[in-house]
């Protein structure tokens, strides 16, 4: 009991000394999480996406994702579909921007066409899944405003409000694990009416290169439709040494063939 009081006093002194608002604390946590993941340069991973409807029927897709880390601006990513077979080779190239809308191209292998597409549709579902495009895009600090809510069992709970009015959410409630490199354990999504829409839980975390935490499973549950999407990742490859040339329209076509 005595210890608790001392801790509380100590914390309030620190809190007073820093005079930190919940907004500042929230931003600080988001920045700490970003910093903890700095320096991975590039990675590539294969994943299986399992879509489950409310009756429990499932369908699967398999994809390959390559990511290039950029510090000046948002990351670049290239996603290639390997199945279902009728869309095999369909690929997207995304240049995330810290400020403003992302640049995105779609490659259609049947007619060999690269098409610049609007990145306006952030809230729409990614290939019929419970993941919206914005859930899968690179998480840049600048894309949200923050408010620290509480600390619970080593988890820092932070509310994030999307800056972009085109987002499908009023807010997200994110649980950071401060003892594990600020990795994210859970995200709750609140729709435009501020009702709980989805919960995303991360599990089967693995530490790569002694620094980078990557979850092996993302499980997204939609509470309103009772549908579910599970992403299962194979091992990440952080030794691919990808460069800007691997994230061009030329590379997009090559990846889809």
């Amino acid at each position: 009991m005595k210890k608790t009081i001392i801790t509380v006093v100590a914390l309030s002194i620190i809190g007073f000394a820093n005079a930190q608002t919940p907004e500042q604390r929230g931003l600080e946590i988001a920045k700490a999480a970003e910093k903890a993941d700095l320096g991975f340069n590039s990675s590539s991973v294969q994943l299986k996406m399992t879509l489950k409807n409310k009756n429990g029927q499932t369908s699967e897709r398999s994809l390959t994702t390559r990511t290039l880390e950029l510090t000046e601006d948002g990351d670049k990513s290239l996603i290639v579909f390997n199945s279902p077979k009728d869309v095999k080779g369909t690929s997207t190239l995304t240049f995330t921007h810290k400020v403003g809308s992302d640049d995105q191209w779609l490659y259609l292998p049947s007619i060999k066409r690269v098409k610049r597409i609007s990145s306006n549709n952030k809230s729409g579902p990614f290939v019929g899944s419970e993941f919206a495009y914005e859930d899968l895009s690179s998480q840049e600090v600048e894309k949200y405003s923050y408010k620290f809510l509480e600390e619970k069992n080593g988890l820092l709970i932070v509310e994030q409000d999307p800056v972009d009015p085109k987002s499908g959410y009023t807010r997200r409630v994110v649980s950071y694990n401060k003892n594990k490199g600020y990795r994210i354990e859970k995200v709750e999504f609140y729709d435009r009416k501020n009702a709980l829409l989805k919960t995303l839980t991360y599990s089967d975390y693995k530490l790569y290169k002694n620094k980078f935490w990557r979850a092996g499973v993302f499980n997204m549950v939609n509470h309103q439709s009772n549908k579910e999407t599970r992403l299962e990742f194979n091992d990440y490859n952080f030794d691919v040494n990808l460069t800007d040339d691997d994230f061009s329209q030329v590379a997009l076509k090559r990846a889809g063939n």
Partner: protein
Amino acid sequence: MKILKSSYHVLIFLFLLTQFNGYAQEEDNALVHEFELELEAEYRYFPNKSAFEGQKDHFPSIAIQPEYSSQWNNGYESINATGFFRLDQDDNRTHWDIRELYYQKAKSNWELSIGLKKIFWGVTESNHLVDIINQTDAVESFDGEDKLGQPMIQYTLSTNYGNFDIFYLPYHRKRVFPGEKGRLRFPLVIDEDAINYESSAKEWRQDFAIRWSHFFGAFDIGLSHFYGNGREPLFAFDASGNSNAFYPVINQTGLDLQVTHNAFLWKFESIYRSSEAQDFFALVAGLEYTFSNINGNGLDIGVLGEYLYDDRDELALNALQNDIFFGSRIALNDTQDTSILIGGIADLESSSKIFSIEGSRRLGNSWKVELEGRFFSNIDNNEFILSNFREDTFLRLSISKFF
């Protein structure tokens, strides 16, 4: 089937195969092979009585498309092959092709492809003006998006000033037109062998093309030039009314531009084509706007509008001189990828209109069903091309199985 005429395919295939084996053995442990097969059953039905003698109304058909690729050197080197065969009521639509068969090597900022390949250029939806590298597979589909494999050496260089593509095109492929039993043809069945070349080197004329493409923020731009045997034959008539069709040697400069701003895509394509026989200018300009995730459940509805202009005289294989295209793309973004495209092209100077509907949906994990309808309405008698198709309204249903 014109097997002899395609024998050059086989020669190139054999040549490349021997080359590839050498490569494959060196890097054996990193080889990744993939093989896919698509089997398609199709039924086309033309409800109107045919305009010309010999034409059929019902066209059951099957097609097969095998695809093979092998990659090594972390995907920076590959061999890609796609074959195609269709069996149809119309003898000319019964055809086979090597859509692609090429070796590719990429290294940092350059890429080299050698073999038969398919290239797409352009941004608009209703007409593909700048797209000129491949010959159109005119018997395969009405929209002209199916292409014949083009022999080439393609070198791509990526720089800070954009991508530069250089194409060496050593062989020209003739367009195949529907046969006697086929629809969507002219009163006289066009024999492709009877179509000559302006160039004395004929199909072996050594052709070249170059393209520069780049993007700056919201702008995607492409500038291209092609010099060689044209892909569209010209139909000329002498004093006694006999027709003389030939492939002219052309110079074609093309520009394509897209501006992507919020949910708007602004699109522009234009070409200037010159030859001994004919010079002309054509453009397509339009926009696409998408209302996305309308029901909060993924429903996207896009609206498209494009203006088409072509200052060619009437002796061209193109019916789009001064027309408006309007359309709507509906995507459910459901697990089965259901999508529908409806549209219409209306001639601003006559009553002619063509309406179309295309829908597709995946069934299970490895089947796909497609439905297509093209409706020719109030076609003006003075339309050089379209007047022949006035009775060729059709419905097409196809089911594909992917292995």
